[in-house]
């Protein structure tokens, strides 16, 4: 009797009663649930010259699901960019971030949009995390007008000034002094915000890093240098490039923290801790132990300097999205099917964005000369003689 009643009512109002029929206890609607959960990070933090933060991270179901969704979007976006590159719609350089999504997501969760982030050329996902849209990403990759830099920057030059994303830089290591400059400006304006300057394990051997670190420590700038250690500087493994691979200790007098970069919650905890620290005590180094599945860029297969077993091993054991998925399922925050649905939605979003981006027009020829100088000196510029050379393209 009870069973038939259940089944009849479920056919009338499936949405409300479906969870009831599926599981035999009450479910609160998951997307807005903010009851705090405490989850332990995968490994404890290792610290240098400071107290490591606690392993227990406060989070909420809403946050975990948003992590899942955003990371799935990023993963999907990078794979789509891969196919676009192979279809020759994206040219030049394309550095993909899949595998490292937890760093971008965890960082966003630990800070506000008023804090600044500056990174190197592997910036697609960081841009997305900062509030960029898929349409802007794909348009910029394809060199169209609707891109975030109007097609003039390309894969390595994504910027979003209104949400504090300062790029997007091609020259290895050059963004670190820029990041310390951002921190200087924040200190100058007394904003109580911080700057995260991201770089890779390859850039960690640049001199300008240590120069900037010295100045930042000297002037107590709220700068946090984040080394995204994916263990390979293009084709060179870290043990072949650095005498001391403990990048978090390289700051010497600057405190450092080593974080499991595949665990979004650990990253979140570390960034929160670093922000508090930087506002009081000056710069800090975070080392994110992470991994990239793709090669350095699209022209690098990624398997000449590392074994496929290694790549698949990491994918099986440490994949950031899988970790969040397991957490969500373990805490019964959503079902397998719901997560699969989210992934399907994400896939569709990405496909739609690509389709829309493909329709976006190429920039006008006159755009060649815009934004070389700030408007006010006229749009056309310029060599020394201010001539506009017009050549008819065949």
């Amino acid at each position, binding site marked *: 009797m009870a069973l038939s009643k259940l089944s009849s009512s479920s056919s009338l109002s499936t949405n409300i009663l479906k969870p009831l029929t599926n599981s035999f206890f009450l479910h609160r609607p998951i997307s807005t649930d903010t009851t705090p959960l405490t989850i332990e990070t995968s490994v404890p933090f290792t610290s240098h010259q400071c107290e490591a933060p606690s392993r227990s991270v406060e989070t909420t179901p809403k946050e975990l699901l948003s992590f899942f969704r955003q990371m799935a979007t990023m993963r999907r976006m990078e794979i789509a960019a891969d196919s676009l590159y192979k279809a020759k719609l994206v040219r030049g350089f394309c550095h993909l971030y899949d595998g490292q999504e937890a760093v971008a997501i965890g960082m966003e969760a630990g800070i506000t949009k008023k804090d600044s982030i500056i990174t190197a050329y592997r910036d697609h996902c960081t841009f997305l995390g900062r509030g960029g849209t898929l349409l802007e990403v794909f348009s910029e990759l394809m060199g169209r007008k609707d891109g975030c830099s109007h*097609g003039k920057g390309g894969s390595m030059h994504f910027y979003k000034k209104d949400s504090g994303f300062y790029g997007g830089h091609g020259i290895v290591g050059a963004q670190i002094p820029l990041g310390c400059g951002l921190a200087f400006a924040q200190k100058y304006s007394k904003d109580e915000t911080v700057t995260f300057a991201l770089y890779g394990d390859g850039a960690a051997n640049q001199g300008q890093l240590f120069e900037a670190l010295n100045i930042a420590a000297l002037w107590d700038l709220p700068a946090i240098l984040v080394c995204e250690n994916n263990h390979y500087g293009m084709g060179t493994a870290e043990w072949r490039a650095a005498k001391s691979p403990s990048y978090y200790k390289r700051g010497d007098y600057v405190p450092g923290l080593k974080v499991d970069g595949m665990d979004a919650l650990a990253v979140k905890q570390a960034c929160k801790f670093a922000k508090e620290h930087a506002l009081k005590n000056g710069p800090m180094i975070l080392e994110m132990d992470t991994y990239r599945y793709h090669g350095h860029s699209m022209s690098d297969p990624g398997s000449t300097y590392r074994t496929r077993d290694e790549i698949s091993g990491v994918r099986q054991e440490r994949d950031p999205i899988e970790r969040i998925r397991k957490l969500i399922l373990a805490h019964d925050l959503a079902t397998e099917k719901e997560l699969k649905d989210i992934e399907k939605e994400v896939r569709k979003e990405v496909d739609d964005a690509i389709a829309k981006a493909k329709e976006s027009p190429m920039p006008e020829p006159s755009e060649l000369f815009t934004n070389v*100088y700030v408007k006010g000196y006229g749009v056309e510029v310029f060599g020394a003689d201010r001539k506009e050379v017009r050549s008819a393209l065949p």
Partner: protein
Amino acid sequence: MAAIFLGVGAATALSPSNCFDSKKFQLSTRRSLSGRKPWFLVVRSDGSVNLGSNQRSRRTQQLITNAVATKADSAASTSASKQGHELLLFEALREGLEEEMDRDPHVCVMGEDVGHYGGSYKVTKGLADKYGDLRVLDTPIAENSFTGMGIGAAMTGLRPIVEGMNMGFLLLAFNQISNNCGMLHYTSGGQFTIPIVIRGPGGVGRQLGAEHSQRLESYFQSIPGIQMVACSTPYNAKGLMKAAIRSENPVILFEHVLLYNLKERIPDEEYICNLEEAEMVRPGEHVTILTYSRMRYHVMQAAKTLVNKGYDPEVIDIRSLKPFDLYTIGNSIKKTHRVLIVEECMRTGGIGASLTAAITENFHDYLDAPIVCLSSQDVPTPYAGTLEEWTVVQPAQIVTAVEQLCQ
């Protein structure tokens, strides 16, 4: 480094007020140009010409925006202005800097020994005491990173002035200047402006050796997105400094080690110089001599000899090294039909080389003779005094060149 005294030739010959009375100097600037707003010219490859007005002019309405000192307009009625005050070039730079720092709290200075030491050429002396350590920053010896920091700070809206103790040291920051400073406005689609000023002394000085006597204008000139200006007198030093700080574009201000102790009387009231305009130093009829920075004084010295010999050279201090003020230069060429370029850059790939190309492309029909470009020899600057003298252009060579050109 101690300030270096100007000792080339007779000291009196090189004071800019020698060209005309200091009283007339002030009056002429006020009278002839008060109604003239700064403008720029775009010459298109198909020959059509566009004139436009600089949007900055609305901010500078009370100021004398144009600083072309001409001899001809000296017969003006007395204005109500005060007499002006005398100072040295480095003091003029400091005055400009101080006025801008007072005016805008976003302006800050960073460089080696600019703060407590007062600046190696005393340009920033006293500013650290007045504005504090956060606005006048002593950096460690790390040009690459503090230039990068200046650019990063400029991306957020601060207006830093980065001082290279010697321009040659900025070679270490070339990556930051070229890739970030010049290009960020473009690659970000206009999102970021970089209102930075990079300044410092360069040029061949008093036996400083090869590495400390570099002329970087030739290396920086092809970086897209930056503007370059060179100052030569206290008047234009202060004016260009102020204009550069107010400009939204990255500006590189080239000073010269030997010119820091030039004395001149400058107006008391506020003024700026247009970043893109050349200065007419001495109008004439026979030949156009284009020069900038220290070579201006060698040219003026040669001009005295030339006048005695019966020539009438027109001397223009181009001031704006990128972009060139082809309007002023063009008008002059159309008048005289002969051009001599005197510069301190190397012969290969220097400012003179670019200027020669620009003039030839634009004004070929007006030239009666090939353009002569006198530049420094393509050698590292030697230490020995006599050899050093011969690396740069000397007045005697200028006289000979003009005589040959005017045959």
